């Protein structure tokens, strides 16, 4: 516990480094491109366009529970799940290789290594903030603004961040010792995406599959986002219990693995 507090204190002392790194990450990404920050937007926008066209227009899929009477429903439904999943996927897949990518720094410079996941998370949040901010702007303009209930996004987002960073830490540490973990998880993430009702509503699944959906810790999160943004209602917080428990467990496991193997990790890199 004292070591936890110590590392928190250390991280605070290095806040200049953390914020500077986040800023540099952002600049580095767009330094040499003409359109710069626009690329942050183009990528998810293209994805949203593809899904909207293919699923709701071309395939004329019936999406029960999504149609609430206006043309934007599916797009809002999609954005609610897709943008947040994008944040999750970015954090987790970058965490996998976090320690491997920073091998030289870890070996040669004495600094609190707990700052690395923090930098990663903040960088991802900046990108997410831009695209999600734009989405919120779209909600206001199209008259779909959900009102105060939007604040409910924050606790859901908090649980999601815990899940991402906990899982990321576990994978990041394991990947240093067993490189198969990274390879496996990249494949697994694809399946996980399609097993989560993000581009399709949960109600299209056969009823015998429905109970199993709750085993997926991301389902509770996605459902809450969709509830808030599309139906403009309070989410059912009970649905968040399992994701929260799962995230807390992962965080403990991650911190445990990290503090126990941090030293050995440097030897292995």
């Amino acid at each position: 516990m004292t070591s936890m507090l110590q590392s928190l204190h250390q991280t605070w002392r290095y806040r200049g480094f953390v914020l500077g790194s986040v800023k540099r990450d952002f600049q580095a990404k767009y330094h040499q491109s003409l359109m710069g920050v626009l690329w942050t937007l183009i990528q998810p926008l293209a994805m949203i366009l593809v899904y909207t066209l293919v699923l709701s227009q071309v395939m004329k899929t019936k999406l029960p529970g999504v149609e609430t009477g206006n043309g934007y429903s599916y797009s809002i439904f999609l954005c609610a799940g897709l943008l947040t999943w994008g944040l999750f996927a970015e954090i987790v897949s970058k965490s996998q290789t976090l320690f491997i990518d920073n091998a030289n720094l870890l070996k040669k410079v004495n600094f609190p290594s707990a700052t690395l996941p923090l930098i990663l998370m903040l960088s991802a949040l900046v990108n997410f903030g831009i695209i999600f901010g734009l989405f919120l702007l779209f909600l206001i303009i199209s008259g779909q603004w959900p009102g105060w209930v939007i604040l409910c996004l924050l606790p859901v987002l908090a649980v999601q961040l815990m899940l991402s960073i906990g899982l990321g830490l576990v994978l990041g540490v394991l990947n240093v010792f067993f490189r198969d973990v990274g390879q496996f998880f990249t494949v697994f993430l694809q399946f996980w995406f399609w097993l989560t009702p993000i581009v399709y509503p949960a109600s299209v699944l056969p009823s015998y599959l429905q109970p199993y959906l709750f085993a997926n810790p991301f389902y509770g999160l996605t459902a809450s986002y969709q509830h808030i943004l599309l139906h403009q209602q309070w989410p059912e917080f009970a649905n968040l219990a399992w994701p929260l428990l799962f995230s807390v467990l992962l965080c403990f496991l991650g911190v445990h693995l990290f503090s126990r193997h941090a030293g050995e990790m440097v030897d292995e890199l």
Partner: protein
Amino acid sequence: MTAISVKGLGKAYKQYNNRWLRLLDWLSPGSKQWHRLNWVLQDLEFEVQAGEALGIIGVNGAGKSTLLKIITGTTQATTGQVQLQGRVAALLELGMGFHPDFTGRQNAMMAAQLQGLSAQEIQQLMPSIEAFAEIGPSIDAPVRIYSSGMQMRLAFSVATAIRPDVLIVDEALSVGDAYFQHKSFERIREFQKSGTTLLLVSHDKAAIQSICNRALLLSHGRKVMEGEPEHVMNHYNALLSDRKGDSIQVSTTAAGHKSTQSGTGEVVIQQVQLFKQNSEATETLLTGEMARLQLLAQVMSPVAELVVGVMIKDRLGQVVFGVNTFHSQQVLTELRAEEKIELNLEFEANLGPGHYSVTVALHAGPDHVQSNYDWRDLALVFEVVNVSKEEFVGVTWLPHTLRIQHE
């Protein structure tokens, strides 16, 4: 006050015969170990007092870098502990994490933040960092167009922007041009004068001897010797030629000097003597006088090749002059046992006043590293006094003409 205290320090890396064993190691709950430990450092004990400078010497793979990494804190020790007092700065690898697309200034910022400095402190330090690096307007150009020397300058300047209490320097410093090397050593010396404790790893004899008060010799992860830099350096040189596992002996000469001797013994040095021009043995020479150094050796068992080398060193152990029969193309070949060797070096003693020592070596090939029959440090010590020339400073007398004018 003790600045660095190392107690019972050991470092072992885990080794697995195959990757699956590591998985077993992680998953098996019992105490059974599936790895072997490969010890690179063992039972290290030493202390460095505040303001002292300790040199760490050893052949590649002796564990020097691992030791520095443990003291710096990036690598964890397997056994024992390290205690440090005050702010530590490490120059393990300069220019770590420089991003090529950012300007020198931005990268300097980043490097300073990595040391835990706040934005405000960095703002204050920036002008002095720029001034010391001396890279001019390039500070605002991307690092990708920097020469490696410029990157070094900037990196060193940032790393030493604040005087640390403990400074750890790896061989990193030997890069950069002579001017900047000089400048950076000057800064390190200044730090030392102000009380910074210094830990220096180097193969550069001159660096160790001119900066360090004490040296520590590592071999196979253990401390072999600790003491006067000159003395430890001699032992290290002996160790270099000791690859075949022959003996190294240290004996004390009549004058109280510690002489290091090593070699495989096919040919042995029997006598080293210094003569004046009139063939009178001496231990004192006058500056500019003609002298003759005589070396007698005997072949104990046949050797295919023999090179004889002689080196004169000053009081600090710096080589003033060295020569051998390989470079003079006088290599002796196919020597039979019982043959006697005599080498005479006649020279003009254009040396400054002071004490000098003679190191002699018998070996094959251009230097003593390849195969060393006999090597002796401090085989002879002599003094040079200046009576015939006007007073001058330095270790050597240069024949010269001095002109001065005024109108």
